[in-house]
């Protein structure tokens, strides 16, 4: 049983922004896979604004060496979208792992971001692609880097009168890229650890290493010290070992030692070893 609310279904982005501005206590719904569960548990709002069908929020376009992803793109579509598969492979893989086929048909990247779960699978790939969010409200448009937009677990700096309309990412070509995650069953499970990686190497030298770790710290993060250490480094056991040591230190610095780390840190160590070795 859901609480009482009214719904509006704008046909254009402008209509959506107008509703957002005028309504007292609106919630934006796209796929509904997070919001419906919350509402069943008692979350209240006066209105939902259904943006899932707005054409301007769909589509994946390439422009000025950037890729723009409409916030209402579903995980299913993104996992199969040629531009994403070719230029942001970790994102395509991550989207293909979220939930179940039904969840992937319904859920959107915008929803995944706005929910900002520490375990959100789309976030680490977006981080290594320097994702920038476009947030719109009536008369105003601003861009904010994804890592700044997530301020706490499940909390973003998106104003409740703002609509996330698109996400811009930098394509990465010539990288060995992927997404690894562990979960308690083969599919349809919350990630207990997620690692997005994109590595450019030349013979036995790392040129550019991008990493993002999810489900480990309160927010998914890029271990900047590790990336700096590896950039230009020789690719050998000692360097890899040191990089991993620094990664684990960064995590402990952010979160302290959590009970789950008895599991997560050794696993992360093993995954990073495999990922960096290639």
């Amino acid at each position, binding site marked *: 049983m*859901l*609480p*009482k*609310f*009214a*719904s509006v*279904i704008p046909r254009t982005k402008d209509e959506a922004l107008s509703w957002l501005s005028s309504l007292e206590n609106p919630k934006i*719904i796209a*796929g*509904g*896979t997070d919001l*419906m*569960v919350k*509402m*069943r548990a008692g979350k209240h709002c006066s209105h*939902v604004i*259904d943006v*899932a069908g707005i054409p301007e929020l769909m589509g994946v376009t390439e422009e000025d060496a950037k890729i723009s992803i409409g916030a209402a793109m579903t995980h*299913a579509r993104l996992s199969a979208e040629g531009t994403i598969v070719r230029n942001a492979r970790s994102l395509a893989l991550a989207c293909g792992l979220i*939930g*179940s*086929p*039904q*969840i992937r*048909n*319904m859920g959107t990247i915008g929803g995944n971001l706005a929910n900002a779960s520490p375990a959100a699978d789309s976030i680490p790939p977006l981080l290594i692609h320097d994702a920038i969010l476009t947030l719109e409200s009536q008369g105003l448009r601003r861009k904010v880097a994804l890592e700044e937009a997530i301020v706490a677990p499940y909390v973003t700096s998106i104003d409740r009168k703002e609509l996330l309309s698109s996400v811009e990412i930098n394509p990465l070509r010539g990288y060995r890229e992927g997404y690894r995650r562990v979960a308690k069953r*083969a*599919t*349809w499970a919350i990630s207990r650890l997620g690692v997005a990686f994109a590595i450019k190497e030349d013979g036995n030298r790392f040129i550019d290493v991008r990493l993002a770790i999810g489900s480990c710290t309160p927010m998914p993060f890029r271990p900047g010290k590790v990336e700096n250490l590896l950039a230009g480094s020789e690719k050998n056991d000692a360097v890899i070992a040191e990089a991993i040591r620094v990664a684990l230190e960064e995590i402990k610095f952010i979160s302290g030692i959590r009970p789950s780390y008895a599991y997560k840190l050794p696993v992360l160590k093993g995954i990073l070893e495999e990922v960096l070795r290639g």
Partner: protein
Amino acid sequence: MKTINLILNGKETSIEVEDNETLLTTLRERLGITSVKEGCGIGECGTCTVLVDDEPHYSCLTLASKANGRDIKTVEYLSSSGVLHPLQEAFIKSGAVQCGYCTPGMLLSAYSLLLRNADPDAHDIKEAISGNLCRCTGYIQIEEAIKNAAEICKCNTQNEG
């Protein structure tokens, strides 16, 4: 209240729904289509699966208003011509039906698969039903049924062509 216009199991349908109503409730309570089940209410079991524009969705997480302008199919569609669909025949023959509660949702996920992929391999089949839980069968006979039905459907289209 809103009036939604949709194609339901091949027929144009108009119905009034509450703003906060789920498609599951609309189908079961207003339209009497009880083949669509509720198993958990939070999109974690699959018994509420329906096809929206031929793609499987969880109707318990779908606002009824989202069905406006869409094509919605429940398991009744599969036999709407008066004859069992090869998937339904195959489920019966392969022992894929035990308690039957997951069956309508499974059939729809399988039907959607065969629309997309006429020649699915074992992995394709497993993945297609990976969002439908079954506590009785262990999935194996369901997967056998889908494979068998795919063969038959292929033969059927070949014969028609």
